[in-house]
């Protein structure tokens, strides 16, 4: 048999054809990878650069104006990277929180029967969704920097906090040892609340008797710690910021870069979340609400116990991808000089050390892990609220 005929027979057989295609694909893709890596090695050698992460232990010698952990310009690049990671996490987490609250409110407003509220929410959502997020960030930042007063003419809030275009200066709490007692009481309150909610739900299932769960929880978590705080005699003192020269010193400061990024990302993502929430609520059949009302359950409890649990099943998967988008969009921080992952390790460190390859690999891996982390957490939540079928 001649070779061409046997080859074409192999090609016509579905099984052998799929094996051939896959082998070709694997060879092609690995060949491409090998070629790229070889090029990189040749190029790096040509300019005399190695490939190592040793530079992470060298001193960074640049300043980061917002650091949640101890950091000076003598710290290492690795420390700078940690500061960047924490700053990214800070803006991502606070952004997700604010965007969720705003998004749910806007989504409910969009369904409101009040024509004005409905139209205003609609216009707002349409505007925000059709304008790039980077533009929002720059616009908010521009407004903050250009309209707030300079430190000398600071807007004083009761002489303890000051609003300026260099940031919001707040009193910094200094904790005394006795404060640990309050923290302990607070933690105990949370544990008690978790137990009490289960207990109350159990009683309600058995007897139908209904406890005021909300008020008792509030008392346990906030009431008792606050009362004991005053009984002990306020074991916190505050360091109040003061104007020295051209700027304030002492106290805590919320910088305009963080505020602008936080507000802009939240407003932007909230518009998308609002549409998701609206779709979710619409997807719950109106018959469910009617049935619940017919059983004599009031409007608020109908929304909480009947409509929202069912709407959440539709809302959570797309909500996850909005959270991911927010976390990834926080990388735009670099445009206004907020020191996040991209600005520290992928920006100044990269430019100082000239190690593009290593820095970018670190940045990409960090974002991949952040994305996976959020997906993972939301998948667990999604499993808990999913419709349990037989």
């Amino acid at each position, binding site marked *: 048999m001649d070779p061409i005929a046997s080859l074409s027979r192999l090609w016509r057989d579905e099984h052998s054809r799929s094996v051939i295609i896959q082998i070709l694909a694997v060879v092609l893709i690995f060949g491409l990878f090998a070629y790229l890596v070889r090029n990189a090695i040749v190029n790096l050698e040509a300019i005399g650069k190695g490939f190592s992460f040793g530079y992470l232990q060298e001193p960074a010698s640049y300043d980061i104006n917002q650091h949640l952990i101890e950091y000076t310009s003598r710290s290492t690049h690795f420390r700078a990277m940690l500061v960047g990671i924490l700053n990214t996490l800070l803006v991502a987490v606070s952004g997700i929180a604010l965007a969720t609250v705003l998004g749910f409110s806007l989504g409910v407003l969009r369904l409101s029967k009040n024509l004005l509220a409905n139209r205003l929410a609609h216009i707002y959502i349409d505007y925000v969704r059709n*304008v790039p997020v980077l533009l929002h960030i720059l616009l908010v930042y521009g407004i903050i*920097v250009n309209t707030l007063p300079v430190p000398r003419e600071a807007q004083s809030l009761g002489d303890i906090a000051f609003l300026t275009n260099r940031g919001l200066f707040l009193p910094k709490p200094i904790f005394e040892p006795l404060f640990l007692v309050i923290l302990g009481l607070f933690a105990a309150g949370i544990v008690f609340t978790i137990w009490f909610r289960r207990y109350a739900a159990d009683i309600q299932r058995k007897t139908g008797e209904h406890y005021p769960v909300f008020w008792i929880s509030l008392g346990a978590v906030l009431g008792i710690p606050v009362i004991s705080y005053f009984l002990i005699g306020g074991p916190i003192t505050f360091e109040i910021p003061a104007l020295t020269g051209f700027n304030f010193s002492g106290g805590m400061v919320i910088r305009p870069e963080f505020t602008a990024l936080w507000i802009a990302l939240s407003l932007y993502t909230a518009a998308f979340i609002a549409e998701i929430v609206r779709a979710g609520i619409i997807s719950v059949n109106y018959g469910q609400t009617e049935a619940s009302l017919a059983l004599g359950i009031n409007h608020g409890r109908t929304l909480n116990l009947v409509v929202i649990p069912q709407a959440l099943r539709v809302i959570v998967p797309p909500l996850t991808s909005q959270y991911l988008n927010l976390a990834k969009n926080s990388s735009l921080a*670099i445009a206004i000089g907020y020191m996040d992952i991209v600005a520290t390790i992928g920006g100044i460190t990269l430019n100082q050390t000239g190690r593009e390859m290593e820095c970018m690999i670190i940045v990409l891996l960090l974002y991949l892990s952040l994305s996976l982390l959020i997906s993972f957490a939301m998948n667990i939540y999604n499993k808990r609220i999913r419709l349990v079928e037989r």
Partner: protein
Amino acid sequence: MDWLFLDAAFTGGSRDECSAKAGGACWAVIGERLNLFTYGFYPVAERWRVNLSLVLLIFTLFPILFEKAPYRKYALHIAVAFPFVTAWLLVGGLGLTPVETDQFGGFMLTLVIGITGIGFSLPIGILLALGRQSKLPAIQIFSIGFIEFIRGVPLITLLFVASTMLNYFLPPGVTFDLLLRVLIMVTLFASAYMAEVIRGGLQAIPKGQFEAADSMGLRYWSAMRLIVLPQAMKISIPGIVNTFIGLYKDTTLVIIIGLLDPLGIGRASLADTRWTGLSTEVYLFVAIFFFISCFGMARYSQHLENKLETDHKR
């Protein structure tokens, strides 16, 4: 409202002249720099080429968007020829004066990146989506790996990769133009998102359709082209257009690696001492441009959905 129109100054040579005239917004900065906002630093003598490209763009899009266009049967041929003709017009060579791509800027740059990304991400996205649904494990794993990697990292880090380290991976001596590297990255980025949208459409097609195509004796590609994809694409129109809009908005990120799109031009204008502090006016102007284009796309997609609606209306 007062600030926007009634108290606003529309002419003037600097911010001080504006505020002398009126207490509201100062739009003179836009008027003075309108050409910069439109063409970037494209040489003045060659700007007719940009204008001609825009005319060609409208000529190409018209038969695709509207069914009643007289030359609709050639729409596909025109669409295939368009990128080459325009690239030649804009970059030059072959008889035209060459123009360096770092002189591209303004709305023109937004359109170049946006339309290239939109045009190329759709076919690549379809291939990736089919790859992810494929029965061949090797192809499937590569598609999933690629899609999930791209979706897991922000576009800005990919652009940094393009601007700082992509040249290391090319053979020694070969360098790519920065704009070309950006175009490649933006297209790959949008393709991954596009693939996920189309996968949603593919999953919504009932299994019977695949089986029917098989039993008709259609090969894989014929079955996909004639039976599965037309239905899947129809379902995924809203998602596809959303991806287009997202990509179009993401073109603004190129300012971070130094290309001057309208936002970049705006920031450069604000650095001018005569116009410093007018960020609100400049950014609002750019926002209006993006709003009009994105809102237009969204409206067209709604129109398309209604047109392709073949179910019975309730």
